């Protein structure tokens, strides 16, 4: 399997979108491109499984390596392990769904789809690259599309949100840049992740560099207290924008924290793990309690995202194999779930023109499909068995509980407590939205989901239920890669 294919398809789709003229063509070109990418991701997944079944023990498979700039030793170096394969699958699911739910965008359609595809290209490239420079290139490439998506097609205080998001994310990348250059010079002019991971870097130096990289990527993944762009950005963005932001973009940060910060600087990770645990515990509880106070469905999902992403950061900082696998599963599960949640909120908003929970009611009677999906995704969020949320959170808690001292136990217990709060706000929100009498007479005539919305929801639900019922295929994918990371932490 040639990994360039996975970059080529979005690139080609983007160019085609620019070339075709009518809105209908733009939509179909993007949809076909995204579907082709989904198929390619599945091909990658099966090819990867075949290689593993054939006892291929290389850390990264299907490597591609071209020299980009010889003078700086920068290589266009791609390769995948289980984590990247899972992340690429997640991305292609969300992209297809995002394109489907934006079917009715009339304002500057071509630009909208082009930016979505550019954003997805950044994400694919990020998950594929094994060279820090190229990784950073793709990470930053995804920032400006987000700004424009929110600024042009957003709602509410979009100017403020778009600026805040762009500047905070750029701040994050500035930190990453400094950390990255630090690694470059200590490694003897080396950006290659594989080479850097073989290096023994002095403990002092790791302590110096680690905060730059972890905080930098942490900004992307809403690490407390750098989470403030999340609620504003998510709630101002158009539906597909929110789906991409929460489903893909926040995962870039989580992946970076693990692959770059923790993997390359294990001593730094050990030194700062307790601080990360404290911060993510605060994020989990704070996110959950703030969500309880929200009336706006989008703000609600944005704050609950902070809480859910907190789980994966918490689990990462536990530094055990099960916990890290759990962190990754939580990232995948949250990506699918939150994308679907935003999609459903978008569908409801398109019809009712409100996102306020207390203005809605009885939607079950008029739009059974949409509300059923809302129920399912809500249950996933609060961790109902059979859906992906349960599997991921269980793995996180089991993995965290394995670290047996009072500090880690206390953090784990605090995180578990938040489940109760989650149940309260989810049930209350979907209850008062879907059940009861129809509050507003104009809601009685609303139409249920159209074909594209149904398809988008079904695609994401396949992912959620697929993980929920048969989690082993995902955990088998992630475990070996997580083991390599924990081995490095243990110093093996």
């Amino acid at each position, binding site marked *: 399997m040639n990994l360039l294919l996975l970059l080529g398809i979005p690139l080609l789709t983007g160019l085609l979108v620019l070339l075709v003229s009518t809105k209908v063509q733009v939509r179909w070109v993007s949809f076909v491109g995204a579907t082709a990418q989904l198929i390619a991701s599945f091909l990658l997944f099966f090819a990867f499984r075949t290689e593993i079944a054939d006892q291929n023990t290389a850390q990264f498979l299907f490597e591609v390596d071209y020299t980009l700039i010889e*003078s*700086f030793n920068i290589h266009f170096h791609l390769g995948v392990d289980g984590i990247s394969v899972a992340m690429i699958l997640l991305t292609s699911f969300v992209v297809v769904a995002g394109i489907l739910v934006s079917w009715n965008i009339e304002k500057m359609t071509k630009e909208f789809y082009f930016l979505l595809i550019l954003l997805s290209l950044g994400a694919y490239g990020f998950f594929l690259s094994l060279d820090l420079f190229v990784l950073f290139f*793709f990470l930053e490439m995804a920032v*400006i599309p987000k700004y424009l998506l929110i600024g042009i097609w957003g709602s509410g205080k979009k100017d403020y949100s778009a600026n805040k998001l762009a500047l905070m994310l750029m701040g994050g990348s500035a930190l990453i840049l400094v950390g990255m250059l630090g690694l470059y010079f200590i490694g003897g002019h080396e950006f290659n992740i594989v080479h850097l991971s073989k290096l023994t870097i002095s403990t002092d130096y790791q302590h110096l560099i680690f905060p730059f990289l972890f905080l930098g990527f942490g900004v992307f993944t809403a690490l407390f207290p750098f989470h403030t762009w999340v609620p504003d950005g998510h709630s101002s963005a158009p539906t597909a924008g929110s789906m991409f932001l929460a489903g893909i973009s926040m995962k870039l940060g989580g992946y970076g924290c693990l692959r770059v910060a923790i993997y390359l600087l294990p001593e730094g990770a050990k030194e700062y793990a307790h601080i990360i645990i404290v911060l993510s515990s605060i994020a989990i509880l704070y996110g959950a309690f703030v969500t309880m106070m929200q009336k706006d469905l989008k703000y609600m999902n944005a704050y609950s995202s902070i809480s859910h992403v907190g789980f994966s950061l918490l689990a990462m900082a536990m530094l055990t194999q099960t916990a890290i696998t759990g962190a990754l599963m939580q990232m995948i599960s949250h990506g699918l779930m939150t994308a679907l949640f935003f999609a459903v909120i978008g569908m409801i908003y398109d019809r009712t023109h409100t996102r306020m929970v207390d203005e809605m009611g009885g939607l079950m009677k008029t739009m059974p499909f949409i509300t059923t999906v809302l129920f399912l995704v809500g249950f996933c969020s609060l961790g109902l068995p059979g859906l992906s949320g349960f599997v991921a959170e269980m793995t996180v808690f089991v993995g965290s509980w394995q670290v047996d001292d009072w500090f880690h136990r206390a953090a784990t217990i605090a995180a578990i407590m938040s489940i109760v709060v989650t149940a309260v706000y989810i049930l209350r929100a979907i209850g008062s939205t879907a059940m009861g009498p129809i509050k507003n007479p104009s809601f009685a005539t609303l139409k249920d989901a159209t074909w594209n919305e149904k398809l988008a929801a079904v695609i994401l639900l396949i992912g959620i239920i697929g993980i929920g019922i048969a989690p082993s295929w995902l955990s088998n994918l992630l475990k070996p890669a997580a083991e390599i990371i924990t081995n490095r932490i243990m110093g093996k």
Partner: protein
Amino acid sequence: MKTELIVTIIIFLLLFIKLGKDIKNEQLLPFIQFVLLVNFIASFFYNVDGSLFGDMFYTNSLIAFEKSILSLGVYLISLLSTDWLKKTSHLPEFFILMLSALLGMCLLLSSGNLLIFYLSLELATIPIAAMSNFDLIKKRSSEAAMKMILSSAFSSGILLFGISLIYGITGTIVFAELPKLADGSSLFIMAFVFLFSSFAFKLSIVPFHLWTADVYEGSPIAVTSFLSVVSKAAIAFVLLTVLSGVFQPLQDIWYVLIVVLSVASMLIGNLFALRQENIKRFLAFSSIAQVGFILVGVSGNSNIGISSVVYFMLIYMVSNLAAFGVASVISEQTGKENISDYKGLYKNNPLLGWVLALALFSLAGIPPTAGFFGKLYLLTTGGSKGSYLFISIAALNMIISLFYYLRVVRAVFIDKNNQPIEKLTIQLPVKLALFVCSVSIVLLGIMGWIFDYIESLH
């Protein structure tokens, strides 16, 4: 010597044309543009290393490449300002002045001793002051020219003082001999500071930047872009040669100097750019901040540092010229030069909107534009000295700069305006130049071999 000769021939050609019967601007301009293109293409061929006139003039492949960059800049400016140039009543004179300045810059790059260095620096400066005055009916234009000539006369005085001190200490003015004789005495350091402040003045490094904004605002856009792109590139190239060649023994001293001035330029340029309304002033302050970034690369003091500065200057040139080109089209056809006038530009002029956005993203250093690569290479070479504080400040400044570049992008794409700028007609040469700039902005970075090529020229 070849580029200098060709430029001189073109100057004389234009003089003869001026003496002959009147030719309409519509006919003359395409001819001039063609000749400049020939000059640019010719600059790549038959380049010989060597020196002339007793080491007064020397050249090598890197210098030849730098001259090609300058020629490209002049050619692009001649295309981009088509609207304005067609209206001007003294077309041949304008190009005679601009090419004289170019001749001065080429000689400057090749200068092998302090005397020819001073001479060519003056040749590169004085015509620009005359060019600033080219909007004859505008008061601001004369004001700009006056400010320019007075302050550059002052800086020349300081430069001459520095040169005379150096001659007094070492007894030589030949670049090749100076490093051996540089003794690091306080007097020599003082002479160096005088010399350096003249550079700083020409490059508008903070705190020698005060003339910049007014001159940029008052001059015609063609001159502003020449001043901020071609002139700056030439001086930056010479600064590299002088610092890493002549003043190599003093490198511990000038490293500190460069770091302090770089931080000051980035911070002050950025903070002032935040509040500008006029697009020319805005670009003036942003270019001060960009010079701060260039100094980051200069501070690396290595061959790869020189390459990254040359590479960045090339990228900076196409990005800045694209931005100035759009500003020039809008200013010539509507007379609007304020950022608030750009609101809703995208609605009627999507092409101009995209080009401007691309240029600004490149200046801000956002991938996949070339500016990202340029800035990252500068930071990488600057970071080789291990000063993380310095690199962190530079990285933080990238965020501030993003904020004000986004302000323009927001005006173009997002802000609503009841009377947006109507559909503008873009002339063919302008279209061509904007196309060249945009394609370079996208491709220069991704095609990494260009950097390796510059690196191989040493």
